[in-house]
């Protein structure tokens, strides 16, 4: 059966029909298909978590070794014209928005470089009149003066703008669909450019066409029924990987955390479900990178190390100018792992893994 584009409700229906027999069958296969994936994210897979974990641990050790790449996000603009109900950058939240100048960003980068960081992720809200795609490309170029690797997590850009970013040295991109449930997507994005589902959905394809080497997808866990959202994201990622085999595809799993505005998520993703979803992603695409941010606590992130996590942010600040400057705006989300970069690296090593700072260089 060809897997056509399915709605979240259709996928949920498939998931809830899965039995332990389906999970056992999935775990006996080397290559996981759509039905197997539904089984692996289903409640029926709960008793198999340890088995899934063992397999992911073995596969990830072979493919990635005992290494974890560390990077730091750098927020260069919190100006935003969208009304995303779950985000503190929401345009209805009145606080002084700011843009980091190139010179101020250089100061931040030098500080981070001194702490060992060699890869940063530039983050913005969505306000093209304040921070356009070409301006972001310029910032990428500035980062590359100091760091060997730069990525972007910004508003959806055109293919030409992504090409400009790549030409200025960007090698990876993160863009989360937030949710693949169309109704929920409309509900949580009441206005602004972000309301355009398809424009955002096509970001990975535009970026891949533009030559972006690595693309990270994800959903904001809690917005909608998470198991179906993860399956949708996995299908989206596989379609990108199949059409662009040269692109390194990855997943991140941001969970909604409290912020200014107190958005309460409809679905609770507890730690057990979170781990199940990480393992499902890894079994679906063993070569995929799994990136975990500082939304998660230190102890939880450490516990995830043997379970296929290959990339972590460290020493994060989610305000503009959070590293070198006293003037702080609003944080995009609460940081739950407040360890310094050095402490994160030490903890990773204590857990039997090598913290890697430099794993990429655009020559």
């Amino acid at each position: 059966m060809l897997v056509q584009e399915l709605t979240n409700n259709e996928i949920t229906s498939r998931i809830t029909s899965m039995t332990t027999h389906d999970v056992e069958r999935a775990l006996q296969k080397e290559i996981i298909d759509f039905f197997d994936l539904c089984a692996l994210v289903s409640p029926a897979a709960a008793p198999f978590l340890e088995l899934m974990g063992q397999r992911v641990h073995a596969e990830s050790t072979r493919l990635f070794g005992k290494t974890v790449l560390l990077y730091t996000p750098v927020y260069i603009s919190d100006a935003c014209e969208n009304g995303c109900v779950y985000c503190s950058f929401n345009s209805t939240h009145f606080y002084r928005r700011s843009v980091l100048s190139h010179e101020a960003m250089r100061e931040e980068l030098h500080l981070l470089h001194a702490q060992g960081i060699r890869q940063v992720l530039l983050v913005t809200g969505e306000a093209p009149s304040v921070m356009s795609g070409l301006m972001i490309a310029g910032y990428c170029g500035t980062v590359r003066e100091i760091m060997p690797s730069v990525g972007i997590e910004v508003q959806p850009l055109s293919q030409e703008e992504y090409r400009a970013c790549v030409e200025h040295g960007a090698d990876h991109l993160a863009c989360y669909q937030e949710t693949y449930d169309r109704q929920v997507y409309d509900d949580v994005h009441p206005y602004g450019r972000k309301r355009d589902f398809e424009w955002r959905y096509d970001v990975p394809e535009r970026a891949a066409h533009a030559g972006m080497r690595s693309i990270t997808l994800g959903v904001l866990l809690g917005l909608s029924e998470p198991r179906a959202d993860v399956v949708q994201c996995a299908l989206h990622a596989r379609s990108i990987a199949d059409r662009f085999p040269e692109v390194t595809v990855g997943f991140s799993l941001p969970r909604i955390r409290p912020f200014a505005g107190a958005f309460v998520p409809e679905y609770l993703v507890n730690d057990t479900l979170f781990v199940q979803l990480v393992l499902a992603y890894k079994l679906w695409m063993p070569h995929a990178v799994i990136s975990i941010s500082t939304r998660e606590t230190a102890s939880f992130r450490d516990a995830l190390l043997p379970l296929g996590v290959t990339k972590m942010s460290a020493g994060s600040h989610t305000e503009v100018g959070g590293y070198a400057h006293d003037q702080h705006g609003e944080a995009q989300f609460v940081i739950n792992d407040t360890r310094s970069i050095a402490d994160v690296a030490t903890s990773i090593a204590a857990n039997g893994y090598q913290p890697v700072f430099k794993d990429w260089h655009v020559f």
Partner: protein
Amino acid sequence: MDSLVLGGKRFSNRLFTGTGKFASNSLIPAILSASGSEMITVALRRMDFTSPTENILAYIPDHVTLLPNTSGARTADEAVRIARIAREAGCGNFIKIEVIHDAKYLLPDNYETLKATEILANEGFIVLPYMSPDVMLVRSFEDAGAAAVMPLGSPIGSNKGLMTRELIRMMIEYARIPVIVDAGIGKPSQAAEAMEMGAAAVLVNTAIAGANDPELMASAFAQAVDAGRKAFCAQCAVPQEFAHASSPLTGFLRDE
């Protein structure tokens, strides 16, 4: 002495090793000591000359030949650029060409690899191209100036051994330069098998780095490579597929 000569250097140990995937760079000297390996490969993109504590090169003893690789290159041009930078950075003349634009199985692009081989060989590099076993391309790599060819046994990190054994065997038959099996060797017995077939050397990274005791595994691999090479040199008897009487069809003939 049965040694392998590459680029004018003599290697008495036919186990080459890598630097990736280890839990700590401090394991690298121990691995080299346990295995006796004399050649180690390092991705240029991992080298950090701005960080004294994080530079992998600091963990590699001087007597071990450095084999920088072009991991990350997706085209011949990118591989050539990386190779030139590696040499300018003081990494020597050896270069392992890795041109991969398959993020799923990490299979190399043989044609881009061939193009890079010719360019770099002409610039005086000692070129070891990592390639998918293509028997007909062996002569092309020789003509392009490769010092050896490095066909994969199975995909990088798969530990599946010599899935491509028949093609490797044919390559060894046709090749006039060393054939070094690289990628996919997961067990010492698989390394021994490659050497028994006539491979000049093997390169092992994942199977050592991912072992519970990498140092012990490195030692095991060294012994397996040595055993396999000795077996090849001793010309082990060709196994008979069928049991047979001494001359069942021609035994009726008598000298006239």
